[in-house]
């Protein structure tokens, strides 16, 4: 059963950014993509805790790849949006689209 609540705005953005970077996107480039596309700075703390949360909900998964001596020898996570995550995104999108229906020329009317 799908959860009742919808993805938050930032959660949606994060998932979309991962999808834009393609499978195996890593954190540094996802954060950069977010910043470039949305034009706002992404607080690092919020970024990682949201990643954790989405992972905990099962909407994204990650694998690590070992690195050589760059990054101080520390491993790198590569992210992928899961089918559940994609479904959630679609749900959120559909909900928003349905709410917008009939309001496209709202501004013109008022």
């Amino acid at each position: 059963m799908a959860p009742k609540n919808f993805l938050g705005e930032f959660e949606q953005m994060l998932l979309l950014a991962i999808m834009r970077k393609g499978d195996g996107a890593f954190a540094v480039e996802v954060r950069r993509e977010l910043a470039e596309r949305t034009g706002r700075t992404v607080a690092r703390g919020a970024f990682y805790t949201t990643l954790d949360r989405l992972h905990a909900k099962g909407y994204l998964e990650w694998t690590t790849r070992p690195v050589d001596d760059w990054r101080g020898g520390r491993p790198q996570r590569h992210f992928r949006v899961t089918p559940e995550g994609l479904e959630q995104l679609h749900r959120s999108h559909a909900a928003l689209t349905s709410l917008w229906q009939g309001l496209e020329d709202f501004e013109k009317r008022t």
Partner: protein
Amino acid sequence: MNSQALHPPPRAERLLTAALPAGLVGNTIIGDLHQEFAEIAGRRGQWAARAWYWLHAIELSTRYAWRSLRGIETPYQRLLTPHSTVPRSEGREEIMATLLGDLRYGARLLFKNPTLSLVSIFTMALGTGLTIFTFSMVYGTVMRGVPVPNDDRLVSIQMDNPERDIRQTSTSYADLLDYREQSSAFEFLGAVNWATVNLATQEDPPARYQGATVTDDVLANLGIAPILGRVFVEGEDDVDAPPLMVLSHHVWQQRFDSDPDIVGRLVRSNGIQTEVIGVMPDGFRFPFDHDMWLNLRLDPDLRPRRSQFIEPVGRLRPDASMESVTAELRAITAQAETTEPDEPGGYRPTVQLFEHRYMPPEITAIMWVMLAAVFGVLLIACANVANLLLARAALRGREVAVRTALGASRFRVVRQLLSETAILAFAGGTLGLVTAKFSLDAWSGRVADIQKPYWIDFSMDGTSILFTIGIVVATALLSGTIPALKSTGRGMGAVLQDESRGGTSFRLGRLSSTLVIGEVAISCALLIAAGLMIKSILAVSTVELGYRSDGIVSGRVGLFESDYPEREDREQFFADLVDRLRAEPGFSNAALMSALPGIEAATWTMGIEGDTYESDTDYPRVTGTIIGTEFFSMFDVNVLRGREFNVSEMGASADPVAVINESFRRRHFGDRPAVGARIRLGRSNSTNPWMQVVGVVPDLHVTGGVGGIGSDSLPREQIYVSQGIFDVRFLTLAVQTNLPLEDSVKRMRDVVAALDPNLPVYEVRTVPQALDEHTWAFKMFGELFATLGFAALFLAAVGLYGVMAFSVTSRRREMGVRMALGAGGRDVLSLVLKKGAIQLGIGLTLGLAIGAVLARPMRFVTYGVEATDPTVYAAIVVTLVVTGLIATLVPARRAARVDPATALRND
């Protein structure tokens, strides 16, 4: 960049490791940061990258710490995500929960007793605020150091000649070459020389800058790379090398609009075509506050031993010590002097840390005294809060006992009490930090225009913030631990029994008295320092200048030989200048001089015709100023005997004349007539012309800064010589005017421009402004010490009052019994007063002793007051006794008004 620079700050990394989830996830996050750190280091340099890393490490760890504190996986979220990711230790959660509970409980109690809480918070804010402010100042002035790599080995060399009473003078090129050749203690040894640079481009009018001429090895070896172009390379300090210039970042930005193609551009510097070869990074102003660097082009063959004009700067090898190198250089100098017996000898070089070259040891000493003083204030603040908490802990003895009886461990109870102090310290520390930040900003703004070494910066940085955190934790522990331990360390049975009888078994006793005595002692010592400073400020503000300073505006002009090759040209220029200034409507008078009176003066040696001197060292030293005509009339100084200079006495061809002051006349002429006598600058072998004394004037306050550092070092005897005796190229011009400053400055510049459109007028200011600029250091220390002293006084008074008031409250029952047994209100009053008086007396005695010791290094920054000034000491004792007695009397009177029936009925 070396490989070490590619590592993020290890402490920040440790912080992250501690805060982030352990294991793979945390590790990958640190890796991400590491990766971006390396990119930023490559783009913006390692310092920017380190700062960036710190910021992000703090942000991340705060976020994660907060998350674990809240226990972010709320039950609601757990329902949503049955496969919760990070398994969380229940123990950790429980500890967090109790800690939060403690804090909440503590906060509730503090709200219940707002007066006590506010007094505690305010006290802590005062203590921490003053400490952070002073620490940042001391850190920025004497601890941060010159921002170049290995600045602990960067040295400068200065010459002393005790025989000739010459101190800290420059070195000659000949000496420098000897040191380079014969000593192996230096990694590099170059020289700098200050130079005023008149910079002109084709588009812009000339402007005056502070430049430094340097040998080719100085910039190359300091370890700071240019952001554009290059610095000087070997061979470019040869006498026939082309003139080259490296710009500072701000001149490049402001004067050349950050022109990316600046390298290779030709400019005119002091009239000479010069090529710009590079731009240094922002903030680099070596050696003092410099705007640009030119290559020092020296002729090694033209090297008279005592043509001393350069300042050697070098870096010692890691194994060389200042003392051993000083000894080595002294031997080299002594050896060289024996081979050149015609040159004056007796010079002794001294190697010192470069940083100390521009930071006199007196200032450093004062800074440390100030830091010690402010720690004194902090201690008082801690003692106060401790006392207040002790008082409350006493009243809560029963609560604590009940908790213990119900099974709470001592640790648990202490932690509860400490968490209250933590709230107080946190609130006080935050308030203090904010106050200190604003004060520092205001302070930096106030001293922004003062010439000071470029690395002095009062702003807060990572170190100050870490220091603040340390201070807040220390205050919390200092003021919380003792009361907490004290109130829990007793058998609960006794307490419960005691409390049931309605009294307070917990006696403040010796601990509290000791704290009060300590407070009185520290504040007494600080007040003595403050008193000396306040008396000095009064002395400076009422100093008899001896001349009129209001309504006089001054500026400075300098002529370069490239534009004015002959001495006659220069003299003609100055003669025309002063004529035109006097003719300018709005200016009622004008005069030329080597420097404004009261600002600075040269020290000269001179002899009187007919007098004999046993040796060269016996020739009198005087303070000398070069002046033109109408100097004394413009500054409203009455000529006591004779007259001042007239126009015919100006210029090289005129008869040399001089004016002396009254101190000079009294000391060297006594009953002999001074006017008409002849004097000569220099010693026995002088070739200077004899100058006829034409007038005697009163003593003017002509020293290096009224009350500034070393203000009393200049001779009181003054002479004024006419402009014609020296071939001067730089002169200060002063006009007397009622016009607003902007108008007079504009007219002054117009007059100069009419004579020479390429000549800038600089250092434009009124005489009072100039005096202010030269007394800032003195006023700064004065205000700070006064602030510290009054803060200490205030805190001590609050502390004394708090302790006395509490002691009276907790002894209400005892007082009641005493009065019921027949003691009068007067007896009770004297009982309380006596206790206060004893504490006050012991504290004062200790404080006077500490104060007398503290006052000794202060003589460097005081003016017109002795370190043992009895009026200051007496005033402090009276102030403290009165404050102390008031603080004791109020609670004592309350005790005396106790109604025995009420006091006993409370049982």
